[in-house]
C-alpha cells in the first residue's frame, strides 16, 4: 500500500514539475539540480530549495523595506539585493523569478521607482 502511495506521489510530482516547466516557472537548471541528487545526497533538491526560499524571503523583505521608505533613493543597494536574488534564482532554475528580477533591475537602473 505504501508503495502505491509513493508511486502516486511521484506521478503527481512529475505532473506538477511538467506544468512548472511548461509555464516557464522553471528551466533546465532545475534539471541539473535533480541530477545532483543521488543515494549519497538524497535530499539535495529540497535542501537547496529550502535555502533558496529562506534567502529569498530575506531579500524580499529588504527590498520591500527599501521601497516603503518614502525617501528611498538607494538604488545601488537595491541593485545589490536584486543581483543576489537573480543569481540564486538562476542557480536553481527559477526562471520566472529571475526574469522578474531582470525587469526589476532595469527599472531600478533607470531610477524608475514606479517600475
Amino acid at each position, binding site marked *: 500500500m505504501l508503495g502505491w502511495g509513493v508511486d502516486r506521489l511521484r506521478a503527481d510530482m512529475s505532473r506538477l514539475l511538467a506544468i512548472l516547466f511548461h509555464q*516557464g516557472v522553471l528551466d533546465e*537548471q532545475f534539471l*541539473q*539540480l535533480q*541530477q*545532483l541528487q*543521488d*543515494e*549519497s*545526497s538524497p535530499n*539535495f533538491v529540497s*535542501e*537547496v530549495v529550502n*535555502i*533558496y526560499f529562506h*534567502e529569498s524571503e530575506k531579500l524580499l523583505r529588504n527590498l520591500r523595506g527599501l521601497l516603503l521608505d518614502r525617501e528611498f533613493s538607494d538604488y545601488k543597494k537595491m541593485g545589490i539585493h536584486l*543581483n*543576489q536574488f*537573480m*543569481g*540564486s534564482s*538562476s*542557480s*536553481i*532554475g527559477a*526562471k520566472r523569478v529571475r*526574469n522578474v528580477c531582470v525587469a526589476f533591475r532595469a527599472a531600478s537602473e533607470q531610477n524608475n521607482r514606479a517600475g
Partner: protein
Amino acid sequence: MGSNSIVSNRWMSEKMNCLDLSPNSNSDNEEEEVHVLAVDDSLIDRKVIERLLKISSCKVTAVDSGWGALKLLGLLDDDEEDKSSSSSSSSSSSAGFEGLKVDLIITDYCMPGMTGYELLKKIKESSSFREIPVVIMSSENVMARIDRCLEEGAEEFIAKPVKLSDVKRLRDYYMATREIRSVQSSVNVNKRKLQESFDVSTSSSPSSISPSPSPSSASPPSLFSSSAPCSPSSLDSPTRRIKMTSFD
C-alpha cells in the same frame, strides 16, 4: 528466482561502491583526486558548486569570501586582514605548510569585500600559489570583464548557472594537464639542483654558465593562458570556454 536476485544484488553493491564518492573511501586515491577550493558569497551557489564537484569525484572546500580563501591558503599578511586572526598567521613567504593544499580554485566574480578578480590577482601575485589554476564564474558575461580576468591569468571564465558539463570539462582538462604540470615542476626542480651543484663546484662566480633568472618559470610553456588574453586553452574547444546560455 533466488539465484538471479543474488547476482543482481552483487551487481548493485558493486555499482554502489563505484558510486560512493565520499572522500573517506578514497584514501588510496587521494593523490588522484582533484582538490578544489570553491569561493562564493551565495550560500545557494556554494551548495550547488560543492555538489557539482563532489559528484565529479573532486574533493571540495567551500568558503564564502576571498579573504576566507586567502586565509585558508595561508596567504594573508597581518596588516592585510580585516580582523586580526588569533591563530599564528604565517608570513606570506613561508606559508606553504600552514595553508591548505588545493589543485584548483573556482571563484565567483561578484563578491562583497574582495571580488573574484581581486582574489585572482592576489593568487597570481603570490610566488607559492600562482601556479594554481583559477577559474572565474559569473552571471554577467561582460566582455571587458572576461578579458580582464583572462589577462590576469584566469584559466577559464564560466558563465553561471554552472552545469555538470562545465565541471566535468574542467576536471577532465585539469587531469589532462596535471601530468604536464608535474613534469614541468620536476624540470624546474632539476634545473635548480643543477644550478646549485654548479654553484658549489665552481668556486668563482659562474661566468660561462648563465643561470636562469628564477626557478619558477617566467614564461610557462604550459597550457596556462597567463599572457595572451585571446589564446584558448588548447585542450578545450574554444567555443565552449565562454558558455553563453540563452536567456529567454
